[in-house]
């Protein structure tokens, strides 16, 4: 399966099974799509008709714009969600070499054949836009290029890993979301935890937290890296227990041959000098909640008296980050139907000096004013394109920032085992309540149907763990047919459950947004890479 789309002046072909990413000119774009369905001769025939000398030029199979699914497993998802016709936006800086076939950098392809550098090739790709005719000789070369990629397993690759989905998985536990507080000092409008209380539970006692650490060690055979997220509610309402749990874990990690990595997710109200010193010493990551502009933030992130948190927390976040010494952090927020122009909020946070940003779409129940609707998709997709353009502009200007959903490690990144396993909720990752109860993840806490046991007696034999293990993307026909399946791994089980009543359901709105983010992220990576060559 391939996924072909046009965005920000780029023609992009994703080869799903290999994970390959190809940036191509218009002719190659049409040729690859045609080759998949018609083979070599069929592609030649189509391209001669579309681009051949002396013919009225057409556009092959691709159409002029939009996303296109190809691959014989088409699912009718193409187009219609805000992709753009290629047209050169963001490419003006790569027009300095007219000869797309020079060997300026002497770099080689997989066969050792020298080729041009990124600038000249990109210029060649651009020059093809809307005006190119090709000779039979050029056509032969193009088909040869395509077949070279096929032979190297980078185009139309078959999945070598599909049988993994049929194998029984029994992965060890490796991460806990430790809900140390089912209380909160805020009253945010979109809180999935019911004002942070999850229906009650209070604060986690230290002994419960220590037992959770032991439970994690006991159930993580074969894993060294263990992650614990202090979450809530507001975890700083139970700071002494957070500190106590960290101290306990540090005492036992050597003898147990484990490495604990802690994350603190906080609304920031209780951050003080002591918290900053502790968090920056012990937390490998801190997630600081802010929704962007003051008016955006304060309309949703409210204190019990109705006032907003912006003025109280921004100075604290600035100080914590300034003293963090380069360790990981995220300024993390939520956008709702109240701020569909969320890019203004991301940019605002960047303008505050923060460089590690995340803004997530709210997942609100029907009837909520926060709920994002399908009608909002076109505008939101434009926003994600705008965000990528702004990130590229700022990167070139030397004041770039990172956006969590645009962080893609193309050369590395998750292996196929990880991509098939998904987020690990219900097996590798569990949430622990203040009473020591176990749930598949923080978003299921308080729902009796998903109570999995407790940290003293362990995971109960009630089928919940198994249901999550079997809930991979191969279990859904819609996912099997979707090009994005190895990027989202089937999506968030909690979102699916809350939207459809089943963890195996499809949260279609979320799917569409996710696909747009991945398309934008890959385009940004390509453009950023080209810029680096300039």
């Amino acid at each position: 399966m391939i996924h072909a789309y046009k965005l920000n002046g780029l023609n992009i072909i994703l080869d799903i099974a290999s994970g390959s990413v190809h940036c191509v000119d218009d002719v190659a774009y049409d040729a690859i799509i045609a080759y998949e369905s018609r083979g070599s001769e069929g592609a030649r025939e189509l391209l001669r008709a579309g681009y051949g000398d002396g013919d009225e030029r057409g556009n092959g199979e691709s159409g002029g714009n939009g996303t296109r699914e190809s691959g014989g497993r088409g699912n009718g998802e193409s187009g219609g969600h805000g992709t753009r016709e290629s047209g050169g936006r963001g490419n003006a800086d790569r027009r300095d070499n007219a000869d797309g076939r020079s060997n300026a950098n002497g770099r080689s392809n997989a066969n050792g054949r020298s080729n041009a550098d990124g600038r000249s090739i990109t210029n060649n790709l651009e020059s093809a836009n809307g005006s190119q005719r090709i000779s039979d000789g050029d056509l032969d070369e193009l088909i040869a290029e395509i077949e070279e990629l096929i032979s190297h397993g980078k185009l139309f690759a078959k999945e070598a890993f599909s049988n993994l989905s049929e194998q029984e998985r029994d992965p060890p536990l490796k991460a806990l979301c430790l809900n140390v507080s089912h209380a909160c000092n805020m009253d945010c409008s979109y809180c999935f935890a019911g004002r942070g209380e999850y229906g009650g539970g209070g604060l986690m006692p230290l002994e419960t937290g220590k037992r959770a650490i032991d439970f994690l060690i006991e159930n993580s055979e074969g894993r060294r890296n263990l992650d614990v997220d202090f979450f809530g509610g507001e975890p700083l309402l139970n700071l002494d227990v957070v500190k106590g749990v960290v101290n306990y874990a540090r005492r036992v990690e050597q003898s147990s041959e484990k490495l604990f990595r802690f994350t603190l997710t906080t609304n920031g109200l209780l951050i003080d000098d002591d918290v900053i010193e502790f968090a920056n010493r012990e937390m490998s990551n801190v997630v600081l909640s802010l929704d962007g502009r003051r008016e955006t933030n304060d309309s949703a992130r409210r204190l019990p008296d109705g006032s907003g948190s912006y003025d109280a927390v921004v100075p604290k976040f600035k100080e914590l980050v300034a003293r963090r010494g380069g360790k990981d952090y995220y300024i993390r927020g939520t956008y709702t139907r109240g701020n569909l122009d969320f890019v203004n909020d991301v940019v605002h946070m960047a303008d505050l000096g923060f460089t590690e940003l995340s803004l997530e779409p709210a997942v609100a129940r029907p009837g909520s004013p926060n709920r994002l609707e399908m009608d909002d998709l076109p505008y939101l997709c434009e926003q994600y394109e705008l965000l990528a353009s702004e990130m590229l502009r700022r990167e070139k200007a030397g004041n770039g920032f990172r956006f969590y959903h645009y962080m893609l490690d193309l050369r590395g990144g998750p292996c196929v085992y990880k991509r098939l396993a998904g987020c690990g909720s219900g097996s590798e990752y569990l949430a622990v309540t203040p009473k020591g109860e176990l749930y598949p993840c923080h978003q299921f806490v308080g729902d009796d149907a998903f109570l999995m046991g407790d940290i003293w007696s362990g995971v109960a034999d009630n089928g919940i763990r198994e249901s999550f293990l079997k809930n991979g993307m191969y279990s859904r026909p819609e996912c099997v047919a979707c090009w994005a399946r190895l990027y989202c791994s089937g999506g968030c089980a909690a979102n699916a459950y809350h939207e459809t009543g089943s963890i195996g359901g499809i949260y279609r709105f979320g799917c569409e947004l996710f696909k747009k983010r991945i398309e934008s992220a890959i385009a940004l990576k390509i453009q950023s890479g080209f810029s680096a060559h300039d």
Partner: protein
Amino acid sequence: MEENILKRIITIETRDLNCSLEDGGCGECRTSCQSACKTSCGVANQQCENPEFSADTEN
């Protein structure tokens, strides 16, 4: 970013998922909700813990 460049096609260097069947699977990576998502599934945004495969996250 390194690319393999043909005449009309630039192939961006990526981790080959089929090959990762052989060189992946250590399981030492973070679960996706340990980072910054919490309400979605950002597996593609995760890093590989194997130093051989984790070097390119500039965006």
